[in-house]
């Protein structure tokens, strides 16, 4: 991770893609969100969605995985260049999550993250809070989900 001071509003990360298979949609739903339109093709066909679609939580879990892997690739590159890595803290939460379109079986979602806002943490000395607008777009170019996530990022030692 880059230090808080090295992150800028507008920094854009192309995180990669994830394709949702019917099997994955149903197995995530069975564990965490067993509503009929996420569990069963026939029931989904009768619902307002019209076909099997992923739990919204599944569409975000896939974003999270790609975001973490992106960070790990970036860290490996920085380490190879001999740079010191900043610590990434947990997230205190998120807001304005919108599930704008269903994600159907077979859809491929392209995920991205863009820094929207940053501020020094009042409660935790040595840390900043970074807010990012995170998005998923389907193969037709339609925005399917977006939210404003947040996370603690370590400040550069000695930064004031």
């Amino acid at each position, binding site marked *: 991770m880059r230090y808080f001071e090295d992150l800028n509003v507008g920094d854009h990360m192309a995180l990669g893609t994830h394709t949702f298979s019917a099997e994955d949609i149903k197995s995530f739903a069975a564990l965490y969100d067993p509503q009929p339109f996420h569990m069963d093709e026939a029931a989904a066909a009768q619902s307002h969605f019209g076909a099997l679609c992923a739990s*919204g939580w599944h569409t975000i*879990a896939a974003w999270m995985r790609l975001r973490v892997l992106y960070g790990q690739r970036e860290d490996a590159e920085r380490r190879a260049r001999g740079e010191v890595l900043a610590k990434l803290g*947990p997230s205190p939460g998120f807001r304005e999550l919108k599930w704008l379109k269903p994600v159907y079986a077979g859809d491929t979602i392209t995920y991205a993250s863009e820094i929207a806002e940053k501020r020094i943490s009042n409660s935790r000395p040595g840390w900043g809070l970074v807010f990012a607008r995170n998005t998923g777009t389907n193969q037709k170019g339609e925005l399917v989900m977006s939210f404003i996530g947040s996370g*603690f990022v370590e400040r550069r030692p000695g930064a004031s």
Partner: protein
Amino acid sequence: MPKFYFEDFAPGWTAAYGPRRVTREEMIGFAAQYDPQPMHLDEEAARHTMLGGLGASGWHTCAIMMKMIADNLLLDAASMGAPGIEEVRWLKPVRPGDSLTVRGSVVGTRASQSKPDRGFVTFRWEVFNDRDEKVMTLICPQMLLRRHAGAA
């Protein structure tokens, strides 16, 4: 047939579900698949993070809460899913072996302007651990069919 429709919810409605125990194995399993950060995966590495020890991915806490709400409410309701989440706060880490309880209340309701067959119920959900600490809050509009579509 669903037992609960849009009309069955109003401010004053409350519910409590659980407890649901979260094991170390499932925490690490979820993290390995969806949120592979050391603070969610590895006890020793997690000790050196802000969490101070292994903690569940916040998305895992959301997913566990979702399952509890589905099993206890939504599968008996005319649920049409949720258009989004207004806000989630992760207030405390969820630790291995914690038993989670979910408490819900209704913040407000509104019939859809454009589609007479449905309405939105905004719930506030709070998740507590077995030390009665609030670990997460979530505010979420839920879309539900009306019992008699278009009725006032």
